[in-house]
């Protein structure tokens, strides 16, 4: 199961954020006013859905001009961001306690009674999704409404979305819908429109994938080239350690054994001189 988020029809109403907080009983962070309509800021332990407002409006000495229509309203991008429930999930890979598991719905879930708050998953998540909750001492993120799925209910955010920008369902169905929508947009002249995470090119495929109106980096998503698993550095990292250890042992032999041999030779010479 998964999400298909079509950013081309997101209107930034934040109904998804509210529904998510309501259902999951998230307190939310203290209000913070930023230089944007985006006053949520980021995904974290209290925000499992985050509507990004990416403003590409020309600005000149503080005087904001009317946005120039760029290929049908691309001057202001909006995207309801969420945990991607990656097929090859970095967080699940590094979690040392097995607190992060893949569920029967093929989603990525953090078991709160197992997590010990080491925060290794935060270090590994390439999307900055997971947040640490000081009150619980554990990490949190979108569960894809695991409890609702068990009751055959749709995740709260998808149910609340008024434009069906967030769609929930079986991945096969969502992928077909996404392909059709992309084709329609491209036919209408939206050359930059693209799917992100629809295929295996990003972390083996994302169970929450997106239709974007610009390159992924514009939405704070790593490009396909940058989307790599943490274990890419395992072999080389340990190899560098082994080579260093070997060099250090050679240094030890030179410094300690070499000196002992020199002392022995000096002792032998001294004994020879005495004779």
């Amino acid at each position, binding site marked *: 199961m998964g999400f298909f988020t079509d950013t081309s029809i997101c209107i930034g109403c934040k109904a998804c954020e509210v529904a998510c907080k309501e259902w999951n009983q998230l307190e939310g962070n203290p209000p913070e006013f930023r230089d944007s309509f985006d006053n949520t800021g980021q995904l974290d332990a209290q925000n499992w859905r985050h509507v990004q407002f990416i403003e590409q409006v020309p600005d000149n000495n503080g005087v904001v001009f009317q946005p120039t229509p760029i290929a049908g309203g691309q001057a202001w991008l909006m995207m309801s961001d969420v945990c991607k429930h990656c097929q090859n999930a970095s967080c699940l890979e590094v979690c040392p306690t097995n607190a992060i598991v893949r569920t029967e719905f093929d989603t990525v879930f953090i078991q709160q009674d197992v997590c010990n708050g080491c925060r*290794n998953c935060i270090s590994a998540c390439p999307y900055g999704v997971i947040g640490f909750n000081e009150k619980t001492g554990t990490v949190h993120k979108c569960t894809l409404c695991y409890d609702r799925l068990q009751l055959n209910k749709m995740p709260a955010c998808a149910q609340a979305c008024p434009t069906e920008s967030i769609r929930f369902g079986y991945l096969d169905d969502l992928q077909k819908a996404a392909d059709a929508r992309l084709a329609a947009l491209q036919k209408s002249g939206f050359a930059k429109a693209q799917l992100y995470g629809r295929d295996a090119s990003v972390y083996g495929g994302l169970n929450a994938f997106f239709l974007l109106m610009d390159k992924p980096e514009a939405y704070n998503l790593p490009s396909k080239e940058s989307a790599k698993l943490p274990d890419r550095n395992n072999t080389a990292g340990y190899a560098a350690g082994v080579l260093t250890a070997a*060099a250090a042992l050679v240094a030890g032999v030179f410094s300690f054994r070499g000196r002992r041999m020199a002392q022995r030779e000096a002792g032998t010479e001294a004994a020879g001189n005495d004779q």
Partner: protein
Amino acid sequence: MIDHFVRAPAWEWWILLYFFCAGIAGGAYALGAMLRFWGSPRDEGIARAAFITSFIALIFCPIFLTVDLGQPIRFWHMLFDTGAGGLVFKFWSPMSIGSWALLLFGLFSFVSFLVALASGGQLRAADPLARWLRGRAGDVWTAIGMILGLFIAGYTGVLLSVSNQPVWSDTWMLGGLFLASGLSGAAAVLILLARRGRGDTDTAVALSDADRWFVIIEAVLIVLFVVTVAAAGWLASLLGPVLLLLWLLVIVGIAAPIVSHSRRMTFEPRVAAALTLLGVLALRAVVIFSAQL
């Protein structure tokens, strides 16, 4: 340039202290083993001090790690899978391997600590253990402990690299770098512990020789670290004002053991050792905070 849109894990002061103590604990054990294998009988005093230092430094490691957890009481979840049951061991996760390695190294370090005390006549109760670990059995024990010690000193760097954080994941030099730096720091501690007039002076000179090699290796790895991070486009993260000050300490710490024995500038080896220790701490601080400032 490699994109990173991540959140910092907030691994800060406790982790810095853990990385420092792990480097000293692992490095000291390895140096004790080297002195025992390749040194002369006169080095035995410092070798014993190395094993004692290793264990004392190691005591702090699980404490710092546990305090840093969000749920410290669940520290044992690192070893036991409380969800599915049984032991949890993920060889591809450095934190998982590190947890087991710390436990195993703790055993080796503790036993070597007891043997070192018994050999020095400070703990008679451990005499049977010391007798049992004499000869070949002791060599095997020390060799395994040395491998574990080298691992403990270096794996912390690999742990940082196996992530998606800027700087940390843009290089694979950190394991080697932390190992070389840990050995250098441990040599510095042992030089500081060496007592004049008890035959230790000669060992301290040998340790200074070894330390010069370690800092040379460390310097090479630092260059490779900076080059790899620069190639990924994140050099600026290493050059903040506070970090530049820390880099200065790192450079002084590396230069001190080399300069202390040069013909032009000779100064007290203990001063050089103290500066080296400061550099070891500064290096870890640079690496840890470069991705999180």
